[in-house]
Each structure stands twice: as C-alpha cells, then as structure tokens.
C-alpha cells in the first residue's frame, strides 16, 4: 500500500518542528528556510497550514525537467531530485502549479519533499499529529492528483 503525508491544518500550532526536522534531515542544519515542508500562518483567521508536495501521479515538475533530474522512488512513489543531475534551471519551480519545488540558492539546485525515503521526519517531529504518514487512500490526495491532470487537459 502506497503511503502519503496527510495534513490536518486544524491540529497545527505553527511551531515549525516539522520545518526543523525536514531541514535537519536534508541539510544537516536547523533551517526552516531550507525546509521542504512549510507552515503558512493565517493570522487574521487564526489558522496554521503545513504544506508540501503531494507527489502527484503525473508530476508536472518531472515532466518539465529538461535533464531527467526528477525521478521516482520505486519504494515510496516520491518524486525525487537527483542532485547530481539537477542543473538548477528552475523550470520545475514554475511548472509545479502547487509551488512545492523550490530553488535553494546555497546549493544552486532545487529541493522538494522526497518523503525521506519512506520515514518522513516532519511527521515524526510533529507534536500534534497534524502531519501523519498514512495509507494514501485516506489523504484525499486523489482529488489533488485529479486536479493536477485535469487542469492541463480537459478530459485527459
């Protein structure tokens, strides 16, 4: 069974433990600016919303990459940046309509969520279970994926 990150904004307190866990896992530093998951704060509404890649089935980023630097992790289904291939052209950052592929100025390459190889650090770090790693059927991801395909072509 494929698993996916499930996000429940109602449980999020905006503490950024997920961002630190993500950056520590991937960069070896506590650095929210380099996190693959971001928490957005809606001050006026009093809401917090973690947000990251949904690993769309037909990934826009992957298709747009000119040098085959985004590949699929066979175990998790995650779309993974192959650092050695990425030239830093950033086309994927404008191609992804969800805005979840980002350029890392320090490395000159792009970064995105790779599900930590199947054991996402953000989910482990979240103190309120706002982020969980569960069977994909339960995440509502299918809807987002459907959108991902639908808005490119009417009836694909």
């Amino acid at each position, binding site marked *: 069974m494929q698993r996916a990150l499930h996000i429940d904004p109602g449980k999020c*307190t*905006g*503490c*950024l*433990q997920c961002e*630190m*866990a993500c*950056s*520590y896992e991937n*960069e*070896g*530093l*506590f*650095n*929210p*600016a*380099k996190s693959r998951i971001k928490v957005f704060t809606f*001050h*006026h*509404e*009093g*809401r*917090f919303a973690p947000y990251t890649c949904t690993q769309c089935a037909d990934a826009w980023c992957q298709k747009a990459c000119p040098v085959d630097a985004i590949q699929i992790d066979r175990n998790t289904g995650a779309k993974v940046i192959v650092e050695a291939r990425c030239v830093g052209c950033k086309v994927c950052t404008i191609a992804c309509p969800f805005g979840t592929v980002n350029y890392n*100025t*320090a490395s000159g390459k792009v970064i995105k969520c790779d599900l930590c190889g199947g054991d996402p650090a953000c989910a482990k*770090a979240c*103190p*309120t279970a706002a982020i969980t790693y569960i069977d994909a059927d339960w995440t509502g991801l299918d809807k987002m994926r459907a959108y991902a395909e639908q808005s490119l072509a009417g009836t694909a």
Partner: protein
Amino acid sequence: MAWTRKILRVDLTNGTCTAEALNMAWANEYLGQRGLATKYLSEEIDPKCDPLGPDNKLIMATGPLTGTMASTGGRYSVITKSPLTGLVACSNSGGFIGAEMKNAGWDMIIFEGKSPEPVYLYVENDGAELRSAADIWGKTVWQADEILHKKHQDPQLRIACVGRSAEAGCLYAAVVNDLHRAAGRSGVGTVMASKNLKAVAVRGTLGVGNIADPKGFMDAVNAGKQVLADNAVTGQGLATYGTQVLMNVINGMAAMPTFNMKEVQFAGAEKISGEAMHEPRPSDGKPNLTTNAGCFGCTIACGRISTVDRGHFSVQNKPEYWGNSGGLEYEAAWALGSDTGIDDLDALTYVNFLCNEDGMDPISFGSTVAAAMELFQAGAITQEHTGGIDLAFGGAAALVKLAELTAKGEGFGRDIGLGSKRLCEKYGMPDLSMTVKGQEFPAYDPRAIQGMGLAYATSNRGACHLRGYTVASEVLGIPVKTDPLVTEGKAGLVKAFQDATAAVDSAGLCVFTTFAWSMENIAPQVDAACEGDWSVDRMLEVGERIWNLERDFNMRAGMTADQDTLPKRLLKEAANVGPAKGRVNDLDKMLPEYYALRGWSADGQITPETRARFGI
C-alpha cells in the same frame, strides 16, 4: 558549540553595523541569552547611566538552544537598564524572531548610542544596515509590521518593533515581535524608542548548526519532547486552557489580587477565565478562543489566539480589530481584569490587542490603571485630571479609553504611562503603588502565597513572577506541593527557582518546560549542543552566577538592600477572606535566611567569598 560565536554591534550614533566574535570565556560562564547579555551589559555600561540616554545599551540575545529543535527553543531576551526600575532589565519573548536572528548567524545584537533620526535595523544573514524609519515612526506595531513586510517584499521577515507608547515615553513599553509576542516587562521598549530605533527586521536563511554532538542532541531533544508530551500539564492542560486556567485556581484559593491588591478574591473571575474563553458567545455563537498556537519549536503551544465579539462596544465600527490575534494570558487577564475589577472578557481581549499593537506591558498597564482607580476612589485623582473619564473600579469603558490614550501617549494616558509608582507619587499617595523597586506586581497575592512575597521582594528586575515561580510548588504541586501559607523552607525554594530559571532563560528555552522538565532533562540538551561538559550542577552554578551578577549590577546602579521589600499593604493589611484571612506577608521571616543561603551578608551585600566563588 551551538553558539554562532558572532555578535552584531550596532552603533546608532554613527549608523554603523559591525560583526565581532562572541566572548567565549563569558559564554562558558554565562551560557547565553539572559546571562551572557547581562555580562556584556554589566561590562559595557555604567550602571548609573541614564537608562533613556545614549550611554545605555540595548541587547537582543539568543541562547545556545535558540533556533534548534529543542522544544521551546525559540526564545530571545532584550537586556538593558530599565527606565522603570533603574535596574537591570531582561525581558524574554517567544515567537519567531529569536530563532531568525540565530538563523541569520547572530548570537546577539548590541545597540549602542542614539540615532539622530528614527531608524530600523534590517538584517539579512551577514548583511545588516540601518535604514530610515521615517515611514513607520508614529505607527503602531501592527502597521509598521505590514509596511516593513511590503517594503521588503518578504512574508518571512521577522520583525520586532516598538509601538507609539514607547515613542511617547511610556515607562513600561514593550518590544513586540511577530505581532503579538513581547519582551514585555521593565520598559525595554522605552529604551529602544529612546534610541530612535523603531524596529528590527530579520531574515535568516543560514541555518543553525554547530551542534557539538548531533546524534546525542537529537536523542536528548526527542526524549525531552516525549516528557513534555506525556506530562498532563505540558502535554494537554496548557494547550487546551493556556495560562488562563489559573484564573479560577488562584481565585479559588483567595490569592487573586483584586482592586489594586486591596482584596484577594474577585467575584468576576469566572467570567474572564480560561474556561470562559471556550464558551460560545451569545451574540455570534463563537468562543473568544479560536485556537492555541506555538512559538518557534514549542511542543507545548500554550499561546491563545482570540477574537473580540464584533458587536462589542470596544470594536464597533473598527473592522481592523475583527480578526484573530494574540489573546489573553493569565497575567494580562488578571492585571486588566481582576486588579481593576473588570469582568468583561471582550473588553479585556480588545485592550490586550492594544497592548500588543502599541507595545505596552499589560501587567504594568493594568496595575497602573488599578492604582489610578484607587487614587480616584480616594479623591486624589478627579475627572478633571482624567479628562472626564470616570475611573471607578469595574469600568470597562474607562479601561478601554485609557488603553487607547496610553497607547498614543495622549491626555491622561501620559500619566498612566508613568507606571504605578510615579503615578501614586505624583498624586501624593505613594503607598497605593503596588510595586517592588518600581515595577508592578503580577497576579499572585503574597499574603496567600508566602514564598511569592520573597520572590517578588528579591527579584532582580522588580516585582515579577518569572524570576522565581514558586507558585509551581506552593499552588500547583510542581515538582512537590508546599503549603502556600507557611514561610519555613521558602527561602531555599525561592533561591532554587531563581537559579534554575536563570539557567533555563539563558539556554534559550521557555520556563514553562519546567512544569514537566527538571534540570535533569535540560542539561543533557545543553550538554549535547554545546562543547564542554554541561552537567546539572554546572547549569545551576551558572544560574546562581547570573543571579549574583544581576544583583551586583543593581547594587552598582544604586539599589540598596532595603528595597528588597514589599508595599506596606502586603506587609500590614491582612487578607480579608479565604485561607489567608488575617495574614500578611511575613517577609521578615524569610529574607534573612534567603540572604544567608545566597552567601550574602545580613544587610544584603554580596560577600567577597561569594564574589570569588562566581568570579564577579
């Protein structure tokens, strides 16, 4: 390591920003944040200097755990000489800017001198420069925050800012960060504004590394997080009810300072309590509380996010106050509510918004209003003084009006901005001021909680609950329950809390962790993060060194030991109801023992032996 080992020194007089190396010898003795910055302040300024003059300095400081994944490791402090007390001021805040400073590569920012024109400091990683604040001077914190975010086109910019109250010279102005977090006490915002420094805007993308033992650190951090999660208070209680759960507890034991501390129980407490914040309003069916919120890295998340009822008189036709923002914490609810006799939850929430928006310490503001109400009751203040405002206890409209005036520094608000001590002196009744060393009391009556009396009297920044929160033991049973009405053993309890708190603050952690954590949980996190051996004993020694350093600064600033006292009311007028009925605070039974435990002379002086022991 865990420190970035870099300090940013900002010379406001000459408009320069320079980087310098952190003094690691001091870091090893004072850890960081509160302790280390106090060391810098103590070495760099004349303790007798005018707090609002160019010779005072203002330090924003992080701790070694600030910006790390250690739970609550997002804290920073503002350290300066206080205009309210004339003593060392150290005000601690959560939110996000402390971690951002660290992410930008700075352990501390030291501001010195005075800018000829209003400026703000813009820091982007290594880059730091002073920029004109012409367009944000005279604006509220919330307005300035929006302007700066738009100007820099960076939603991630973290901003600390002073409000109009600071500009107007209110003596208890706060430095507000992230819209509703504040280095609140002792007038640190007043000092910032006196230097023509309106705001500090920070963007850090370098990350926090330098962890001495990364694996050990993550193990210690995760173990610590688990302890917080498993503890009923830090795992559930604080997230659900916030600090405001204390309103009914303290009132229930008749330790609730009421009517300028004349009484110890407030009939309206229930209506402004943490539980009440959950109750649906009759008007719109929504509760006051929208959600809880965490500061950077905090897995407790006690913060309150609230709204004011749109139909309430305070916000009618003011849509800018219809959204969510930081809601009432216990201290604010008490000072704005119980102490003034006001039980209107919406009015208190709105005034709390104003305290955030214009950077006023709600404890000092509320207490000063309470003093003004008693002066009004006594006839010392009249409607001629107040511009027609009826200052009877319990008047929500008066509180709202005074908050608006004090925020802007207008009318009678200027008198309220003086603080309780100067206000009562001005109107000829100094004994009505409920202050220690010029700073207003927090929300625990020392007649009903004896240890807190000693904690207040000996606090290095004037009356304060966060310098030695013996309420934890005397009321809440953490770590062990002691009897609030006895004085035996309280000197040791106060000293232990004071030393431990100084160490916790200096690490960059929140003192609320100590509802679940002991130093046994904290020291391993510091030890793994920092080079060298940071044992429990060393942490406590650092805490005690910091306490003595602060005391030494204060003595050099002109403080005398006879200021280690409480207002006459608390020493002479007995509590009128409850378990403490008939009791006053028996400070004289605790103070000598406290001095002795501290290694101070009977007249409160740090002895040469103690100086030698701590290298002071």
